[in-house]
């Protein structure tokens, strides 16, 4: 589905991504994790076609991103950014309908079918009841669901999300993640997400990619990627990694300093 080959990116002399190669399978819930400044968002924006590729290549469905026309790429790939400007507040409905623009004609006049798809997307993400409200009147969770509805109405094969749960409370975080899981299963869509929440990543991701300083530390299923060795190296702090009581995936607990160097704890903490 997505093939990334030797992707390298420099920002003002400093390398942000260093020779990254991996692939994402069709139907994956693929989550990119890593500490701040590890290059997660930069990587995501390369896949989305926002940053031009200088070195290396990214292939989407077997074709290099650079070969796609903007419009045809936007029919395959939808991107949900972290936030959007609100100087000119559109209504929820107008915003979601914008997702139809890759499928609309030059003038951007929506057809009944476009409206129907947008309505369905709003129903799916639970924003239909606020369809006529303006974006700047919404809470963070509502706004995020509007942006997801817009991406859904784009009818993409691949959906990219940049930290969709950042600055949301627990209920909204789970709601967003559940939505994406259901959307992926219902529509056989590939989801690629950047997340700073390791536990959410462990619970929902089919495969994870752990980045540090622009390099891949580990890639694979959550159990394989989230171990205390990889996580402590990547994040540079002491962590407790055990199995989640919910199922067969790891759980990460941060460890306050006062618990470190106490010999009574399990083996994981002896690594300091």
């Amino acid at each position: 589905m997505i093939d990334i080959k030797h992707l390298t990116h420099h920002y003002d002399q400093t390398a942000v991504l260093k020779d990254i190669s991996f692939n994402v399978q069709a139907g994956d819930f693929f989550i990119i994790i890593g500490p701040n400044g590890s290059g997660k968002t930069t990587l995501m924006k390369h896949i989305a076609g926002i940053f031009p590729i200088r070195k290396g290549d990214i292939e989407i469905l077997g074709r290099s991103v650079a070969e796609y026309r903007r419009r045809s790429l936007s029919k395959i790939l939808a991107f949900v950014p972290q936030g959007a400007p609100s100087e000119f507040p559109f209504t929820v409905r107008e915003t979601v309908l914008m997702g139809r623009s890759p499928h609309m004609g030059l003038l951007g006049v929506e057809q009944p079918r476009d409206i129907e798809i947008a309505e369905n997307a709003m129903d799916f993400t639970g924003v239909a009841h606020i369809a006529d409200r303006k974006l700047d009147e919404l809470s963070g969770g509502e706004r995020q669901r509007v942006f997801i509805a817009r991406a859904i109405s784009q009818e993409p094969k691949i959906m990219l999300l940049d930290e969709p749960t950042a600055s949301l409370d627990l209920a909204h975080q789970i709601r967003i993640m559940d939505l994406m899981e259901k959307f992926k299963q219902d529509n056989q869509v590939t989801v690629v997400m950047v997340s700073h929440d390791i536990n959410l990543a462990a619970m929902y991701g089919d495969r994870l990619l752990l980045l540090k300083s622009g390099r891949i530390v580990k890639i694979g299923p959550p159990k394989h990627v989230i171990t205390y060795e990889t996580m402590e190296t990547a994040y540079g702090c002491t962590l407790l990694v055990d199995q989640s009581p919910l199922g067969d995936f790891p759980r990460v607990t941060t460890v306050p300093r006062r618990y470190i160097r106490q010999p009574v704890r399990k083996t994981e903490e002896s690594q300091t």
Partner: protein
Amino acid sequence: MMLKRLLAVISVLVPFLLISAMIGLCFGPSRYGFGEVLSVFTGGGNSEDIVYSIIRRIRLPRVMMAALIGGALSLGGLVFQALLRNPLAEPYILGISGGSAVGAIIGILMNLSRFPGVCFTAFTGSMAALAAILAISSGRSMLTKDSLLLSGVMLNAFCSAVIMFLISMTQDSRLHNIMFWLMGDLSAPGLREVAILAGLLAGPVVLLFLMSHKMNLLLMGKEMAGTLGVNVKLITLALFVATSYMISATVAFCGLIGFVGLVMPHLLRLVIGPDHRLLAPACLLAGGGYMILCDTLSRTLPKHGEMPVGVVTAIIGAPLFIILLKSARK
């Protein structure tokens, strides 16, 4: 849904434009009734008649000129606000009009004809101003509100100085009207000038209408617009060039008229919302009507002669700009 709203907008604003035109034709140093004006157009009146002469030969071209200028300036303001994602952006405030004025004056001093000579130098001036404004305000701060406005103030100050310099250096009779032109001069155009200006504006206006949906997407941010299938660089460049070309044509014909591109898009946005597919035609129609009314005021308020129309638009527009700036800061 969108077409229905478009129809509603047009069916309100076309009558507004026509009524404004009617008012513009009726009022002036001598006043005529609606009936008299109508009879000039319908009755095929006597071309020797003084009323016929004043209305058909003097006021009609002027009203049409005002409609074109007002529509173009409003549309120009709308596009700049969308492109720079800044509700305070406007060609006059940003110094684009100032740049074309410098170009136009140089053209006049070089003895060029209004069209295509002065139009061309005005366009060159506006492109230079555009390049300058983007260069000054870009970089780290990437077109933030304040850096953009400050650059505009500086560019305007510079352009005014250059204009004054050029005027002071020549004792040219061609420049005796220039002070008036600097604040917007709609006087004495003929139907020929109106036709030329209409021809010049037709291209960019059609282009801007076609790109109005792209402007909506651009408001969501460049990255978002890109992932929604917009060729951001190409569209941005096309919008900037088309708008600057349109603005410089208005400057070449009628001088500097400020704040129209601020007042009209803002009022319309309050009523219609931020959808540019509706706002673009609305700006063209309502801006035209607004300019006709401002021009009518500038012709009727002074006891003798008239005042530049830019005085009227600035007296209305500048306070509104300050109010907007204050509310934007909150």
